[in-house]
Every structure is written in structure tokens, then in C-alpha cells.
């Protein structure tokens, strides 16, 4: 873990994701241009930039969620995760998505009990023994800082939880498949400040064991939560560096304008 206040090296020394000259197209519209960056293992990396700049598109490239969209294409570039080219033809995408979990903007628990929301994924993985499932459910709920709040009502519907609790349940669900990387697309945008603070605290704890990439429109959130931030504009990576650089002394005037709210 990065001890507070010590500046990070300008590039991650232990990259888990390596992106090189990566391009992405929706039909004939190019959404990402020549992106190259390294994402550090067990770091929190924030993706920021104005609406439509390609943050979500880029995030979805890490677990190939874009494959589910028709007519998309990668005209050039590579993404390697733990040294493996994830767009290689031999890649098992289902296996990839186990390694790279995702949490969405709108929490989307299944309309089932709190318990089942997590147990479901475990059964799909072939875990059948009840006591093993019980144990993992508890681990995940603890991991998502939710256990104490829900341990007495595991059989209640997940839809009866508060928005913040639902979002942490989705994080717990993502943890169940033991991913290495967790992608989060604006996980707090529908939450009040207290629920947001709880999710941020959780993310801070999770980074001891997981690599987290988070898209956020909230600049303060990016600044306080992440180790590094990447600023995108019109599908291009404008600046990427430790937060001390991006928020205190950005190199690019566009970044300066954006983080100080003077954009446009």
C-alpha cells in the first residue's frame, strides 16, 4: 500500500494492466484514439473527463464488455492484463470477466434475497456445499463492509435495501468470484454523501487486495480516492499521472482547465 503523503513514481512500477496504442470504434465512429497507459496493481485509478469522452468505453474494454455491443471494432492496439493479451483469439471471455469484475452506476441487485445475490454466482461457479456458500457470502459481505448491517436479514429482498447498501451489495457480489481487478462506472453518482463516503471507505480498504479502476464525474472523489488519475478528452488520453500531478500541478493546460472547473 502506498503510504500517505509520499509521492508516487510517475508511472506504476507494478502494472497489472498495460494498454498500448489502443483504438476503439463504434461502427464508423472512433471513440478511443491511441491510448497507452499502465495501471498499477492494487492501486485505485480514476478515469475523468467530460461526458462522451470515452471513459465508460475504455473501462468496458478491460473486461471486453464492449463485445456485447454490435458493430464495435478495435482497429489497432493491445491491452494486456497480467501479461496476457485479452483480445487474443484464444481468450476465454467468461474466464476474463471472473478476473475483472464490474460495478455499475445504478446498483442492479437481482430481485432476490440478499443472500441469494451472492450465492447465485457461487453456484454458477460450481460451488454447491451449503456451508461453503454460507462462508463465502459472509466473507463477501464483510469485505464490502455490509455484514453488520444485514447479517440479521439475509433472507430479505435485496430491493428493500437503501441505495448505498445495494451498491455495496453489488460490490460484495463482484468480490464473490475473487476477481483481481474491479471496474466501477460512476458507482456513487446516485448516492447521498454519507452513502458515498461509505463506498469510498470501502474502496480504500479493497485496494489492499484488489486493483480498482473507477470512472467518476466527481472531481473531489477522484482526488481523494485514487492514486492516479487519467484525464480523457474527445477519446484521447490528455494526461495521466499521480494525483499530486493531475490535481496539484497538471502538465497539460486542458487538464488544468478541467480539474479547476474552467472547462469550455
Amino acid at each position, binding site marked *: 500500500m502506498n503510504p*500517505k*503523503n509520499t509521492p508516487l513514481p510517475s508511472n506504476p512500477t507494478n502494472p497489472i494492466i498495460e494498454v498500448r496504442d489502443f483504438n476503439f470504434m463504434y461502427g464508423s465512429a472512433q471513440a478511443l484514439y491511441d491510448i497507452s497507459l499502465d495501471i498499477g496493481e492494487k492501486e485505485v485509478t480514476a478515469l475523468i473527463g467530460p461526458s462522451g469522452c470515452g471513459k465508460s468505453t475504455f473501462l468496458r474494454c478491460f473486461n471486453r464488455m464492449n463485445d456485447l455491443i454490435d458493430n464495435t471494432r478495435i482497429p489497432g492496439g493491445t491491452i494486456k492484463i497480467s501479461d496476457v493479451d485479452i483480445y487474443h483469439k484464444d481468450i476465454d471471455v467468461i474466464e476474463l470477466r471472473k478476473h475483472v469484475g464490474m460495478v455499475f452506476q445504478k446498483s442492479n441487485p437481482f430481485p432476490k434475497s440478499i443472500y441469494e445475490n451472492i450465492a447465485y454466482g457461487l453456484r454458477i461457479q460450481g460451488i454447491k456445499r451449503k456451508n461453503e456458500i454460507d462462508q463465502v457470502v459472509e466473507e463477501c459481505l464483510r469485505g464490502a463492509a455490509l455484514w453488520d448491517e444485514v447479517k440479521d436479514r439475509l433472507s430479505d429482498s435485496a430491493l428493500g435495501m437503501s441505495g448505498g447498501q445495494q451498491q455495496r451489495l453489488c460490490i460484495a457480489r463482484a468480490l464473490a468470484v475473487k476477481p483481481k481487478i474491479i471496474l466501477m462506472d460512476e458507482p456513487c453518482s446516485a448516492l447521498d454523501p*454519507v452513502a458515498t*463516503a461509505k463506498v*469510498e*471507505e470501502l474502496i*480504500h480498504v479493497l485496494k489492499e487486495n484488489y486493483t480498482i479502476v473507477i470512472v467518476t464525474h466527481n472531481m*473531489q472523489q477522484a*482526488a*481523494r480516492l485514487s492514486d492516479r488519475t487519467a484525464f480523457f478528452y474527445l477519446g484521447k488520453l490528455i494526461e495521466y499521472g499521480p*494525483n*499530486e500531478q493531475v*490535481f*496539484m500541478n497538471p502538465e497539460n493546460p486542458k487538464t488544468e482547465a478541467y480539474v479547476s472547473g474552467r472547462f469550455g
Partner: protein
Amino acid sequence: MQRYFHDELQDLRNKLILLGEKSHEAARLSVESLLDNDLEQAEKTLALDDSIDALEKEIGHACTRYISLRSPVSTDLRLILVALKASHDFERVGDEAHTIARKTRDILTREGRFKPSLKIREMSRLSCKLIHDAITCFVEEDIEKAKAVIALDREVDALNNYHYEALASKELKKALTDASRFDAILVSKAIERIGDHAKNLANEVIFLLNGD
């Protein structure tokens, strides 16, 4: 709710207290070395100055970082503002101590000892006590003690005035060289400034604790 980054505020407080202790030490050593004719101790005081400056810079950086990355408000923000101002006051205390130590080196190499001791020791003890109390009222969040520091600073001022008058008197004009009298005025003035910084620090603690 305690947030993970609040630890950084605790670090900042600790650094500020450390800086306070260093500058207090420098102030004490500088006058002692002068009155005890201790050249070695004067050199030690001079050496403290770099670490004081470095620590002030470190605190300034930590404050800018905290403001940029943590968006502090209310008490957290006041702590940052106070850390910026207080670290500057401590650094200035260090500067005054540095001035006294440099003077000490000059005087001791030129004359072997400092003759016009007057009430310098008493005055220095008082201003060092004020620095010490200013640190304590910050640590203990004690407004009454802060107010006491502000009140006591007047006594330091009074001793400084006493020195000015004494050094202008016929007797001392006869007994001391102009250079010695000039040195004494400089030293007295530096100690008086240390008291002023203690008073500033006390005001900063009051601002921290009740916002005005």
C-alpha cells in the same frame, strides 16, 4: 465519520508540534549560549535552522496537498490554515534564534564574553515559556491558556522597553562600548519578536478552536 485521509491531519498536527519544539529549542539554546559564553552551543543552534526551514516547507506542502486532494471544510480547513500560519511563526522563531546565535558567535569571538546581560535571561525564559505554552494550548485545545499567552506577551514587551532605556542610560553608555550596547539591543529585540510569534500562535489556536 472518521475517513481514511483524516490520518493525514494527525500527521500534520504531529509535524507542527515537532516544528514548535524545534523552534522552542533553538530559541532557548541561542540565548543560553550567549549568556553562558558557549560557542559550541551557538553553533548547534545555527545547525538547527536548516531542519526548521525544511520542516516548515514540508508542512506547507502537506497543506497544499490536503487542500487540493481532500477538499477540507470547517474545522479541518481551519486546521490547515492554522498549520500554514503557525508553521510560518515557528519558522520565524527559528530565524530570531538564528540571529541571536550568529550575534553570539560574533560577540564571543570578538570579546570573549557578553557583558550587558541585564534582564536578558529573564526575558528569554519568559518568551520561551510563551512558545512552550502556545504549543501546549494547541495540543490541549485550551483557549484559556491561549489567552494567558497573549496577556503575558506584554511583560516581554515591557522587558524589551526596560533594555532600551537601560542601554540609553549614562551609566551603561560609560560602562559598555557602543558595539556591545548595539548587540544587546539586537538580542533584546529578537527575544521580543519571539514573544510576538508566541502571541500570534495563541491567536491562531483561538481561531482554530472557535472560528474567530
